[in-house]
């Protein structure tokens, strides 16, 4: 059981541990600073200082709210794939591609053999962990998603691309573990986009995490999970962090058809709406989870990263998660 694994790692977490998916909104001063940095008006060290300030703010905020497993809030990141691609040899920046409406991003291009550039996230993890005694998650993007969200001009096919990336991400996982990180989240939001490729995603996660001494979480969202469940349970992780509320808990029906064998970080608040859910509605979501899953398997968090909300909205939504978890612990 994963709870035993947590204890073996020296982590004593309460029932219904609370956490976050990863990103938090950047405070206004940081948004402005990122724009100024792009226009070469401030230096990299000036930007880093503000990112550290914002990270410290979010660590302190999570502590005050009573969250159990913290995240650094990704104050230093824009896009979850581009952040790694920009630092990894083998990638070049691609041209602009539309993501929706009038939003565009530079989609990375794999143009050579991908390599690990040395620790990418470790210093940020160490900094965040130095600010709290509570465990801070290491936050990575999975090989399958990086493959799916990049152009590939080098490898012969999608599988070999994902496997090459997995070897690189594994080195980052090892570096996080060496630094003392015990809970590592490897996000795979592209997990369900091609159900026929689930075996590739599983093989890549095996190559990334299997045999390493940490508690692994993966986050997936916007997914057609009905096409990959229960096969997705073979992913080499201990905990699936899933967007439950935005989909009106319809995933629970799937879990009825086949037991959910891993821990779950159960999204109890919708991150795509400015509106704050009713406290009782959030509590009912946990109740629903308990009709399918043993209490020892359930973690409580928002559906997805909170970066698109305002700072105040994000804090209010996190407060709701903590209140719901505490109600059930008692």
């Amino acid at each position, binding site marked *: 059981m994963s709870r035993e694994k947590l204890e073996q790692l020296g982590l004593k977490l309460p029932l219904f541990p609370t956490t976050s998916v990863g990103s938090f909104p950047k405070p206004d001063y940081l948004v402005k600073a990122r724009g100024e940095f792009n226009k070469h008006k401030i230096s990299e060290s000036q930007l880093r200082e503000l990112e550290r300030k914002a990270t410290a703010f979010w660590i302190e905020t999570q502590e005050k709210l009573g969250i159990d497993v913290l995240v650094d809030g990704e104050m230093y990141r824009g896009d979850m794939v581009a952040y790694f691609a920009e630092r990894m040899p083998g990638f070049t920046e691609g041209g602009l591609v539309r993501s929706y409406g009038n939003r565009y991003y530079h989609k990375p291009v794999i143009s050579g053999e991908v390599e690990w550039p040395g620790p990418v996230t470790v210093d940020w993890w160490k900094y965040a962990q130095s600010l709290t005694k509570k465990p801070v998650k290491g936050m990575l993007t999975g090989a399958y998603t990086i493959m799916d969200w990049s152009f590939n001009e080098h490898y012969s096919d999608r599988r070999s691309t994902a496997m090459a990336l997995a070897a690189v991400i594994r080195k980052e996982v090892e570096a996080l573990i060496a630094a003392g990180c015990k809970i590592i989240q490897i996000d795979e939001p592209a997990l369900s986009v091609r159900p026929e490729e689930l075996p590739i995603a599983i093989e890549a996660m095996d190559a990334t995490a299997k045999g390493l001494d940490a508690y692994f979480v993966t986050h997936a969202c*916007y997914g057609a999970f009905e096409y990959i469940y229960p096969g997705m349970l073979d992913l080499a992780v201990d905990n699936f962090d899933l967007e439950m509320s935005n989909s009106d808990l319809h995933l629970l029906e799937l879990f009825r058809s086949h037991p959910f064998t891993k821990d779950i970080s159960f999204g109890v608040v919708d991150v795509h709406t400015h509106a704050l859910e009713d406290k009782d509605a959030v509590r009912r979501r946990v109740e629903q989870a308990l009709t399918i899953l043993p209490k020892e398997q359930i973690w409580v968090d928002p559906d997805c990263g909170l970066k698109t909300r305002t700072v105040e909205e994000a804090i209010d939504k996190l407060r709701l998660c903590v209140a719901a978890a505490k109600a059930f612990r008692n």
Partner: protein
Amino acid sequence: MSATSPGLHLSSTGSYPRVGDTAELQVLRRTIAALDRGERTTADILDAENEMTRRAIADQVKAGLDIVTDGQIRWYDPISHFAAKLDNVQIKGLLRFLDTNFYFRQPVVTGKPARRGTFVVNEYSFARNALGHLPTPHDKAGKLAIKPVLTGPYTLAKCSLSEPSGNGSGESATSLEGRALAYAEALAAEIAALAQTGAELIQVDEPAVIKYPEDWAIFERALAPLTAARDKVASAGRKLELALYVYFHDCAPLYEKLVALPVDIVGLDFTYNPELADQIAAEGSPKPLGLGLVDARNTRLEDPEVIAWQIERLLPKLKGERAYVGPSAGLEYLPRDRAFAKLELLSKVRDAIKGTKRAAS
């Protein structure tokens, strides 16, 4: 080429990138951002859309295509661009479009979707006019054509939800099939209107059906009003062909069913299954095909000789030895410079075929 392979056409498959890296290619993006800040009007957006549409058409002609589109520059996405123009449909949150990392606004059907105007007729008229104002390449006189593109009723329905309003008006649209048939009715009227405006070839995109083959019967029933609309146009003495395009999944398992549909052309995405070409070479096709042999989802440029070889072995197996060679899907999933390079690649493929024919003769 016409002297050697009269049935071979270089064709767009739909969309084209709306932005590029230079300031002049950012005009639409910047104008929309300025509108959001209250610094521009919707008239400015229309100007920017017109400019980028002209550029998209000019790029396709410059690259040597025979059949072009307007690049779908005005489309927010392939779903809400249609659904938002219907009564009793609300446009809601973002959802991932099939297996892409592109998001569309999901329509929620609250009653029977009802047409209150045309979908793309004005866009088609503008594009045809814009094409007419471009200098015609010397070898293309009388051969250049522009085709309008519609998202098909099944894909629209699959990407929508139903939330009946409770007043009884939405009874027929509460199911997937109900939505598909309601969308089909609206699209059938659009086909008639496009034919009236002069369209002789209309592309209907149904990517969702190859991903969800369990819905085939619904898809087929929803296609019937569209082919009936074409037949009505034809019976009035006008020329009109419907080209059904599928992409973003392996279409090989459905190949035989696809080419048996009562459409005039079937466009296929060859990038999901390397054996599809072998299958077609073995089985042949009872109708002309759209050959999506150029990968519209990856920046890597294919070897034109390899694609030319594929075409040479497939063309004799297609009815009338007629094929529409193009990208595997719309090109807006690529950066603009790469999208143009993929179009230029099509011309290189044609040159490679010409070279072979010359060598053979």
